[in-house]
């Protein structure tokens, strides 16, 4: 079953008098429980594609169908609702609220979803336990290591039980061992039946996914299955 179906999408920016085609013509189908990596050098349009996939931006042309809803013609508020309910974001720079503790950071999407306080706290706590941070729920981001911060972000992405997890260079700001731990976490999440879209420029990270899409100059250059997926072997450990 297709979760995402985009057809002939284009994104054109007006820079001064010049038109920049960030995305020229992209068509793509993503199934439920896929583990997909989007690769491409900087300027290839992969960030633009990710923003459109994440409903942060709308395409200039083309059709974006998300679970049967036409996202390309949605208003700002409707997009906000889709982002809130259907999409979990994990960013390279974590993007946690610095003055809030882990629990509140994870709780935030539930606040915007209108979940009552008690249930919210319970679900946020559970999500944090699932990513191995059960003993860190009242720590603020600056009291956590990079890996722990990213795990808070993952917990935040998962807490609403979204249809897709959209991870933008999730290991970009982490050392390789910590990065590997995060990739292991994604692997687990995928195994639980989630759909993951990974945006990266690292071949090695992309190999964790089952399918790799390469973007260049606003077009899809290749779309192929990964013959030998790299399954991380490291056990998720509680960092102390």
């Amino acid at each position, binding site marked *: 079953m297709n979760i995402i179906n985009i057809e002939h999408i284009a994104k054109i920016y007006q820079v001064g008098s010049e038109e920049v085609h960030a995305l020229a013509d992209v068509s793509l189908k993503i199934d439920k429980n896929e583990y997909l990596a989007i690769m491409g050098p900087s300027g290839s349009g992969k960030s633009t594609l990710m*923003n459109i996939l*994440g409903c*942060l*931006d709308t395409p200039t042309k083309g059709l974006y169908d998300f679970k049967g809803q036409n996202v390309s013609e949605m208003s*700002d*508020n409707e997009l*906000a*609702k889709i*982002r*809130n*309910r259907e999409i979990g*974001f994990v*960013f390279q720079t974590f*993007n*946690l*609220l610095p*003055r*809030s503790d882990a629990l509140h950071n994870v709780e*935030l*999407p539930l*606040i*915007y*979803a*209108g*979940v*009552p*306080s008690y249930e919210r706290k319970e679900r946020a706590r559970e999500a944090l336990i699932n990513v191995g941070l059960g003993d860190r729920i009242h720590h603020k981001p600056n009291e956590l290591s990079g890996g722990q911060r990213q795990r808070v972000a993952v917990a*935040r992405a998962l807490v*609403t039980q979204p249809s897709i997890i959209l991870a933008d260079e999730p290991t970009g700001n982490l050392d390789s061992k910590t990065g590997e731990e995060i990739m292991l976490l994604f692997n687990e999440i995928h195994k639980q039946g989630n759909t993951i879209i990974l945006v990266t420029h690292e071949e090695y990270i992309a190999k964790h996914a089952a399918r790799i899409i390469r973007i260049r100059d606003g077009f899809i250059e290749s779309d192929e299955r990964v013959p030998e997926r790299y399954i991380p072997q490291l056990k998720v450990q509680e960092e102390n």
Partner: protein
Amino acid sequence: MGHFFFELKESLFISFRAIRANKIRTILTTLGIVIGVTSVVLMSTALKGMDIAFQDGVAALGSDNIYIDKWSWFDNTIPWWEVRNRKNLDLDEFKKFEELAKLPLAVSPTVWTNQTLKHKDRTLNFNMVTGTNHNYIQTTNLNFAEGRFFTQLESESSRNVVVLGSSVAESLFPRGGGLNQVITIKGRKFRVIGILEQQGSFIMGNFNPDNMAYIPIGVVFKYFHRSDFRSITFNVRAQNNAMLEETKEEAISIMRKIRGLTYDKENDFSINQQEGLLNNINQTTSVIKIAGYFITGLSLFVGAIGIMNIMFVSVKERTREIGIRKAIGAKRRTVLGQFLFESSVICLLGGFLGLAIAVLLSMVVNQFLPTSVQVDAVILAIVISIITGIVSGLAPAYTAAKLDPVDALRYE
């Protein structure tokens, strides 16, 4: 509804955290509102005090009184030369009037003169002295600290007795004990038979009972002036306020009869009443009020600009945070609400602080004006704070709400 409530709670949470994170900045920003609200509350309190003071002054005059005089006190429509050429009102006319008037509770004649009052080495130069009769006290609201007013006998036989206003008594007898002492007025000896309670109404100036001495009217004409020296005024007190109009009508017809005026002649006397004074006062106070509120409004405006400025800075600083919130599902109105809420909370804090300062300062003001901060001033302060917060937060909050999430997330 649930959404809205949770978002509101979150907004409150965010506001307090933002305020705590930028304590100094918030305090400095709030200062404008503090000053604004302080001046609003003080201004409204002072204006109310002024009103009360004027009303006290008017009340001392007696709200049920009319004053028949040659001069019109408040009406400037009659040319002054016509008024000047009117016949003076004299004691004979008063006696006729007193005889004919059936409706008034009391009537008394008054005449003013300025004289030097002395007791031993203490002197009051050019002090206002009222000459009147024993009924005077019934036409006023004056109360006695000690002693009494002059009797009919004392009045009619023009005895040398005097009743002193509180300030006059204090000046002549700083250590008290003025009752039954003898003072001199223009060298003539008078026995002090009564001292009035302090009235405390400052608006009447020389006519303030506190600064007045009262002697029988006959004495004025016996020692100080010829009986035609000046027109006398008839103080007429109605039985109650409802009877005021009738009493006035009766007074006019009696006066016309005494003066022998035919139907085609205008009144050659004036009926003065408190209403005229009130109109005068209202004109004065409304000018003061407009000026006061204008200045206050200006200070609030400056405060609001300060808040707006800092809210713009705050939005800029938190662009990334806004991006994060939008990415995970905050709607425009949520972000808008958050910043509006924050500016309102800042203003409200300022409002409460301003209110506290105003209450303290009003205790100082209370030394001059009979007033204190009223509930309506408190409500006014709170409402103004919230409105200022919303108005000054609107533009920054709108800027925040319409930020593009992609750009906001990329913002460093």
